[in-house]
């Protein structure tokens, strides 16, 4: 083996050894990690199923005409016929096509729920960042209010607000946003709190950065992942809550407009008399959307933590 150790051999191998490569963790660059996480996401059946269902409802809410040509508000003489070839999901007691109502019913909820969840995430993130960074009295006050809101039964609070301010869509959105701000706040505050203890924040303070700069430019980018997950989770709950409010009859809406919650509420009493389809199909639609969003939320969280 000794004859191999010639001076030329040494120089050759030194040339092969690329000094410039020193220190770069080439095994898993950021882009590669992202690509692998994305691949994992695409391989996860939960995400694929959830995403397909969710996209179906997104398309249905924008282009309901692609799926049905029947007007959901049209009264026909064929009252209360069970699902069959004439009407896939049957008709209700007023002769309206249930399939068409399920498709058209996607739009109201797909507008209200994301807006409400979005507002809650924005408000919760802003408050959480400030409380986690400043701590002290600001944190005390906001945290106590958040706890008070969290300890009140959500639906009760919602009914109270909606009854007081009127059951228009903006009020519903605002109500759900207020209800969902505390849990978002708590999550973001915890994340911001642990970020604030890291040395990069100390370092920023030592070079005289303003608090606003530290919060917005230093800390926020590091808690954005938390807020994305929080948004998907809250979206699922928002769909659920909005449908519940509609079911309870405290959501405005023209009685003839298609709306899943209102439809379930208007028809459920007739299940006992055998007419189950006007109730079950919109109920299934709600369930499918909530489950789809939860599947997406779970698989995103899993992929991010792998």
């Amino acid at each position, binding site marked *: 083996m000794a004859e191999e*150790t010639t001076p030329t051999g040494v120089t050759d*191998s030194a040339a092969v050894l690329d000094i410039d490569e*020193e220190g770069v963790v080439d095994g898993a660059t950021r882009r590669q990690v992202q690509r692998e996480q994305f691949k994992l996401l695409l391989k996860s059946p939960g995400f694929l199923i959830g995403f397909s269902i969710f996209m179906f409802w997104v398309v249905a809410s924008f282009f309901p005409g692609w799926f049905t040509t029947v007007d959901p508000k049209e009264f026909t003489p064929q009252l209360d016929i069970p699902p069959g070839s004439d009407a896939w999901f049957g008709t209700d007691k007023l002769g309206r096509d249930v399939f068409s109502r399920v498709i058209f019913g996607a739009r109201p909820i797909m507008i209200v729920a994301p807006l409400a969840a979005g507002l809650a995430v924005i408000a919760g993130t802003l408050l959480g960042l400030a409380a986690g960074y400043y701590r002290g009295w600001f944190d005390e006050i906001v945290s106590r209010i958040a706890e008070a809101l969290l300890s009140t039964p959500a639906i009760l609070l919602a009914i109270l607000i909606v009854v007081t301010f009127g059951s228009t869509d903006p009020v519903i959105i605002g109500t759900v946003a207020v209800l969902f701000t505390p849990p978002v706040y708590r999550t973001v505050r915890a994340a911001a709190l642990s970020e604030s203890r890291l040395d990069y924040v100390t370092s920023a303070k030592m070079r005289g950065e303003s608090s606003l700069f530290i919060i917005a430019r230093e800390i926020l980018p590091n808690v954005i992942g938390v807020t994305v997950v929080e948004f998907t989770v809250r979206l699922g709950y928002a769909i659920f809550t909005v449908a519940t409010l509609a079911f309870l009859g405290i959501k405005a809406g023209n009685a003839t407009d298609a709306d899943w919650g209102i439809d379930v509420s208007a028809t459920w009493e007739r299940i006992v008399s055998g007419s189950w389809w006007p109730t079950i199909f919109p109920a299934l639609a709600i369930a499918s959307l909530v489950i789809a969003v939860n599947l997406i939320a779970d698989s995103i969280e899993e992929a991010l933590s792998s």
Partner: protein
Amino acid sequence: MTVTESTSTQTAALSIQDLHMSYIVRGTPREVLRGVSFEIRPGEAYGLVGESGCGKSTTAYAAMRYLPSNGRITSGKVLAGGRDLTAMSSKDLRAFRATEASMVYQDPVQAVNPVHRIGRQVAECFEIAGVPKGQCKDRALGALKQVRIADPTSVMERFPHQLSGGMLQRVVIAMALASDPKLLVLDEPTTGLDATVEAEVLDLVRDLSAETGAAILLIAHNLGVIRSMCDRVGVMYAGRVVEEGSVEEVFDTPTHPYTVGLLNSIPRRGIRKTDRELFAIPGNLPSIGDPLPTCVYVDRCPIATDVCRTDVPPRVDLDNGHFTMCHHADNISSVPGPEDTEWNHEIGLEEVIGVENVSKTFHQRGVDIPALVSVDLGFADGETLGLVGESGSGKSTLAKTMLGVHEPDAGGAITLRGRPMATKATSRNEESIRSIQMVFQNPDSALNRSWTVRRILTRSITKLTGLSGAAADARAVEIAKGMRLSERHLDMRPRQLSGGLKQRVAIARAFAGDPDVVVCDEPTSALDVSVQAAILNLLGTLQRDERTSYLFISHDIGVVRYLADRVAVMYVGRIVELTTTDKLFEGPNHPYTEALLSAVPSVDGRTENRIPLDGEIPSPKDPPPGCVFHTRCHRVIEGTCDTQVPELKEIAPGHSMACHIPAEQLVELQIRR
């Protein structure tokens, strides 16, 4: 050969044979152990060393067959007492772990249950080991006595949070020994502990293994710990043992290029920054899962030739069971060593930053906690002041007070060239902020992970020098070059960089505004020795070229000796000794310094008379009366030390000490090392 080997395999406490293991990461199996083989004889202490990520801990866990959920043994055997763990049923495995092998983990705080009393937890271990229920309590007390914990009866009744790290590690060791194991696996058992506590825990383990006859597998990144503890050592690299032998043979006559590199990277035998540089192994440890078909070290080896890339290196047997896996074992002397430096280090006369009579009292729930008590220090131009002391002695508080994170009590001042600076960083002017900067211990925490390196640097440049836009960018490139970062590193984010590169970025940020003093708070303690060498070299070069002063906080006496010009020793917020580095190692020393110095395990294997430090460092909340050290001092003078506070006075030019014992007497008392 085969005969002896098969018999020894039957009797070996642990025999790992050609073990291959993979972790499944993001869906793909990635190889982490690439054929590990070694054997531990009964009663023997075997050490495993190597850089982090080389598979040491994985091997330790595999020895118990504790595998994480994504770990898979792909081939090979783990034999304990002749039985193959990889083929054991889960029931047998449970019985094996309960009675034959035990493990001690790095962090004792995580190894105990915080809601149960110590006594109950230790007793439970005896229960599992099959001791009749009525006797468990007594046996637990006996075990605590055996690990020489202070006041075992009261410890039995206490909860984990009421014990210090060192005491908890003793408890964990007592629990591990409950089953009277034949094999004790210790995974970095002293890494989180102070050198003084580390020395005590190691003494304990050594004594106990002699008493019980248990074989020991010790994982440590500190080569000194391995040298002082083990009979034999295996050097691991990229999931393979590349050299093995007795600690003396391996550390004194290393025969694998990697071992040579590792040993050259630590400051040994009292060398100083002015003597020569440390050797930094170029390149990085391969990632797990990288294909390494021939020699695992070939990409970083300075003497690699073509044969290293085509053939698997042979096992070259040397004397006394010492072997190496290298094609060029007979040519090991051609591995280049560290370079001598020509550095006429001159320390300026002007005091750049002064710490004058600085005290810092924290107020917590109405109680005053004096964390710093009238500290006086000065930094000359181009000087490195080392700051040592156990954790809790106030080192970091001093650093943060200097930087304006904490406000000193009234009466003290931090001065810049004689003029006092504002006490808070936010109210300091640009000049004051620029003049003093900090390098933190952990670059992962100190660098914003969502920022690119370029942004991290340009922001500091803009903030500290007022340059902006293209000018700031040009300066960032220039500084990065000075830190030996290449331009393409600038557009990466911290997590794409290795620990060493991250720390370079942190240093670059500190140097962005051309500071006068840089506070380095344990800047290399989170890094591997070979990376530490590169960082220490860099700090040395920067000091030589920029004439920057450092406050260098470290618990590693060897590193302080290498880099520091003067050393301050702190204890409970007070400076007890301040002198030049040479004098510190010549003596006479403050008894506390004496104990600190004697606790350092050396890779050179010199056995010293260690001075034990009993008990814990007192809380600054209620410091002992008189000399704060008298409660633990081995030279205490009853009646004097416990009543009178010793003053920090000069005992020789440039050598101050706070001790009642006269210097001449200390010289006689301290038989020089």
